[in-house]
């Protein structure tokens, strides 16, 4: 395998994209763990607190990380003149990012509604759906990491 060094002008967009992606995976993992714990606990008060923490993490960590990752991706593609590329690894990345972004927005809305309803006690159905979405997002992100690094043709 020969050494591959990218031009210096590509580095900053790639850094922004990768840093955003790492923050996104970390924050979605936090949400998934907190929601799963809330789902499993029998204490309604603890479940309500876990739902609030997860819903806030979605809003204040997952959403900004997603935006940084997605803006970084567009910036990197334009620098590398790949905006109109049909490469499958780019297609997989866009698919996971955009479909995942839609799911993420749904999760943010329903988790925050669910967290308000949780004051009445226990884990709300809406937060359970957001839990499933967060786990699904993590699977999608592993596929995206594979596509970005292995670059299938």
């Amino acid at each position: 395998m020969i050494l591959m060094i990218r031009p210096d002008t590509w580095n900053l967009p790639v850094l922004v994209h990768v840093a955003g992606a790492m923050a996104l995976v970390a924050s979605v993992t936090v949400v998934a763990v907190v929601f799963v714990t809330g789902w499993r606990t029998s204490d309604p008060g603890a479940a309500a607190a876990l739902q609030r923490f997860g819903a806030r993490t979605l809003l204040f960590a997952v959403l900004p990380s997603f935006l940084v990752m997605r803006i970084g991706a567009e910036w990197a593609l334009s620098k590398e003149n790949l905006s109109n590329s049909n490469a499958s690894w780019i297609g997989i990345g866009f698919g996971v990012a955009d479909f995942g972004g839609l799911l993420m927005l749904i999760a943010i809305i329903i988790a925050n509604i669910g967290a308000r309803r949780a004051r009445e006690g226990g884990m709300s159905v809406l937060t359970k759906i957001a839990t499933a979405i967060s786990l699904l997002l993590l699977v999608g992100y592993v596929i995206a990491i594979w596509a970005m690094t292995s670059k299938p043709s």
Partner: protein
Amino acid sequence: MSYGTLLFLHVLSAFALVTSVGMLVAIALALRGGRYTGAASSLVPLAGVLAPIGGLGTIIFGIWLAVHVSGYSLTNGWIIAAIVLWFVGLGLGGQIGAGYRRARADGTLAVDSTTLMTHLLLVLIVAAILIDMIYKPGAS
């Protein structure tokens, strides 16, 4: 093992490592107000699993890549810098993680200003490794 597979495993490990650091930061933030001790407590076990898996995977597959790819060498300045930063991060992360595991076992999970500073330092170290890996200073 192919370059693509090695790079995937190296980067996946890096994501696991950064996720463990993110979870440590989330624990600190959850503990700061004292309202989310349950959330903090729920994050400790997985952070404790992801940190060694991500840490070991990053260094093992990273060194493997450096040996596998012609043009990379373990004596390159940017690779030595990454390894040194990795060890510094390992020390800081281990210190924070052990503190949380002990406090969770004792039922005394809390965060003080020194622990917050250690978190900040760890985040800076991880950011420095990421910048080093992407810019590869000195590589030609």
